[in-house]
């Protein structure tokens, strides 16, 4: 083992900042991170054991206990649940004779719950040793388990191909991309790699920044910060070492547009990165790719190589003397909060993905404390069209404050889940129709951290001036239990994904979830609803990062827009109902000391 681990460490130049890669490689080989590995890592990388352990413990896909030779990670998002996840779980459990979150006695197969894997348009879906298995049914499960028991390799288990892209390293996966509507900016048919880049290097970096500024292109990752302005700030920070990071963490449940871009238009993205790199003066770009998308890693690497061969990456790019820029892919290891840009940077440096205090902002001090621009996949892709067609053309799409088009991931109760490229300003109603959703009770906009609206608001627009979104809509049909099936699931998600630094994020969300469960249990009071609403507002002002600031949104927005659902569950006029049951609560201690439940006991 020692030799092997040393060689993995060697592969990453004994660099502690590559701890993520090293740990993932060890996890892949040994199916867990053994004690011995921790010792060797600490020793070789000049870290304390605790440093190594705390990084391991942070990430869902790194484990100190063996996860199984075949590790099955089954998505447990709300949409997976309404798509028949329970039957799939039951089938797995029956076939294997163990319950979820366990490993078979022979260590062959482990089954684990996992947060949204970006496949909401083809649930229930699971990752098995990195490969994606979609639209699972009990029958498919039977075949899978039989295949695994017969010792088949993962590629041989993939029996249906959704997407086949024939690059130098072909991508064959069960995942389908479901592009339902193409747009002028993304998925236009006349994209030719390199054109925009050549056009860009004919201008000065300042001119590129000005053009992007004038286009009013705003970040597509959720917050909507103007891209040109961000680049300008980075340039102003000065210094000769600057980094460009592409945020491909896409962890918001229900969002899968970056997945589709990455498979369909990787060259567009990498070209956008090269242009951004040129504009801010970066020599190195990094794509932070969520672990769940590692099935496309080899394919993306091959595309990068192709671009290098064409001199669109590397040294003196496209013949421009002194323009050197290259891209590497950094895999995450399963943590939603790593989508937050400062957590992402921590993770890139091989640490726990805990958000930093801001300021300083990444454009001032980011990766390795150097000025860093972090942009979403879609933002960087849009840059290419801005350069090709000009700022004015770009602004001819969308609304006054939201220029251009937006890729939306639509899923949930609808006929045509998938990707839609639309102009900003489109109404929710229109999207409901396009997706073929009927009898819609509610639409979750922008994932769990966004908001949940009802029919009286379906005429609202998707735009930064109305309903801002990073790009997802989940349709929730009339027949669903909105609070029990969705809001609870969303709260559980945030509770699991909180990094734990801020007390209100760590504890208050648990308190809120439990209060909601109390109401769902028929033990709630009107005062509980009021308190829930009041307390849910606290996190917004007391937590450090966007996760904690929005984690209570599922509760806040459903109380605002669906208060009747809460009130219908309240069965009493009392303003206080306790869920405490004395008999239950003393049962364990009485059993331990061999004593009967007698009340009232004799008091002193």
């Amino acid at each position: 083992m020692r030799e092997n681990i040393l060689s993995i460490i060697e592969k990453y130049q004994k660099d502690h900042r590559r701890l993520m890669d090293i740990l993932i490689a060890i996890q892949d080989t040994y199916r867990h991170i053994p004690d011995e590995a921790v010792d060797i890592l600490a020793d070789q990388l000049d870290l304390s054991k605790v440093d190594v352990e705390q990084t391991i413990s942070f990430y869902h896909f790194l484990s100190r206990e063996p996860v199984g030779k075949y590790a099955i990670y089954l998505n447990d998002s709300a949409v997976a649940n309404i798509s028949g996840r329970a039957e799939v779980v039951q089938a797995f459990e029956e076939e294997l004779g163990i319950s979820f979150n366990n490993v078979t006695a022979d260590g062959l197969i482990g089954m684990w719950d996992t947060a949204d894997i970006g496949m909401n348009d083809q649930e229930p879906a699971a990752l098995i040793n990195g490969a994606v298995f979609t639209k699972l049914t009990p029958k498919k499960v039977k075949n899978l388990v039989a295949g695994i028991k017969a010792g088949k390799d993962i590629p041989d288990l993939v029996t249906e191909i959704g997407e086949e892209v024939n690059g130098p390293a072909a991508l064959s996966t069960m995942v389908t991309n479901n592009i339902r509507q193409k747009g002028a900016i993304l998925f236009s048919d006349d994209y030719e790699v390199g054109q925009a880049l050549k056009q860009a290097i004919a201008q000065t970096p300042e001119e590129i920044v000005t053009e992007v500024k004038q286009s009013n292109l705003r970040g597509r990752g959720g917050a909507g910060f103007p891209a040109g302005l961000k680049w300008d700030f980075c340039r102003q920070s000065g210094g000769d070492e600057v980094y460009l990071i592409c945020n491909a963490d896409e962890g918001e449940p229900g969002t899968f547009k970056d997945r589709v871009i990455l498979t369909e238009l990787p060259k567009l993205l990498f070209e956008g990165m090269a242009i951004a790199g040129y504009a801010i003066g970066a020599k190195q770009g990094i794509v932070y790719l969520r672990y769940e998308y590692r099935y496309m890693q080899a394919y993306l690497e091959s595309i990068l190589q192709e671009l290098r061969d064409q001199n669109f990456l590397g040294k003196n790019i496209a013949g421009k003397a002194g323009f050197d820029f290259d891209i590497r892919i950094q895999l995450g290891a399963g943590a939603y909060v790593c989508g937050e840009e400062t957590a992402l940077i921590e993770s890139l440096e091989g640490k726990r993905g805990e958000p930093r205090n801001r300021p300083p902002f990444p454009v001032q001090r980011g990766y390795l404390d150097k000025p860093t621009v972090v942009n979403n996949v879609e933002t960087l892709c849009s840059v290419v069209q801005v350069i090709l067609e000009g700022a004015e053309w770009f602004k001819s799409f969308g609304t006054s404050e939201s220029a251009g088009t937006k890729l939306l991931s639509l899923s949930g109760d609808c006929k045509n889940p998938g990707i839609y490229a639309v102009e900003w300003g489109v109404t929710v109603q229109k999207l409901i129709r396009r997706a073929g959703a009927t009898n819609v009770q509610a639409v979750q906009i922008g994932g769990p951290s966004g908001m949940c609206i009802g029919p009286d608001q379906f005429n609202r627009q998707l735009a930064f001036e109305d309903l801002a979104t990073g790009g997802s809509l989940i349709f929730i049909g009339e027949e669903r239990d909105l609070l029990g099936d969705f809001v609870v699931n969303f709260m559980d998600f945030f509770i699991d994904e909180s990094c734990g630094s801020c007390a209100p994020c760590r504890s208050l969300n648990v308190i809120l979830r439990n209060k909601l469960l109390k109401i769902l249990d028929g033990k709630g009071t009107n005062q509980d609803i009021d308190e829930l609403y009041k307390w849910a507002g606290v996190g917004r002002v007391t937590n450090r990062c966007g996760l904690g600031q929005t984690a209570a949104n599922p509760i806040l927005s459903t109380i605002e827009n669906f208060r009747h659902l809460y009130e219908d569950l309240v069965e009493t006029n009392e303003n206080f109902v306790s869920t405490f049951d004395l008999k239950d609560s003393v049962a364990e201690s009485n059993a331990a000391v061999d004593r009967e439940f007698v009340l009232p006991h004799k008091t002193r």
Partner: protein
Amino acid sequence: MTKPVLATTSLAGCFGCHMSFLDIDERILELIDLVEFNKSPVDDIKTFTKQCDIGLIEGGCCNSENIEVLKDFRKNCNILVSVGECAIMGGLPALRNGISIKECLEEAYLDGPTVKANTEKIMPNDEELPMLLDMVYPCHEIVKIDYFLPGCPPRADLIWNALVALVTGDELKMPYEVVKFD
């Protein structure tokens, strides 16, 4: 005019909150003018003899007797105040909440390094003893609590100011010093 009636108790607490209450120093003379004490360790009245206006609760609930006393307070006091971290959150005693009560008992009476004399391996189970709860509960999960005074213990000034505000109906004075905790 009759004086407002005050009751106090310590449940699963360390009496530190009561000690802090006594830290009001010479204001204890004003206190006697301000309120009449009923059930409380301060005057050693063991059972309620009349309906009270205010009940101060120190400590959370770790056993069946705490539950009984707390419910008794709720019945006999118009306003209940959770005083201190233990009453509000369970406090130090709630550190056992992550460990099963069976394990706690075994550690305390059978396996702990300081357990020497218990050769017969007896676990206390006399029916006169309160029964232990599976966890230490904050008071507001058992009965409705009207107000909360944070701190471990809350400063004497905070307890005093809150009491005066409740009795006089004036706004509670909360200068920064009385609610800062480090």
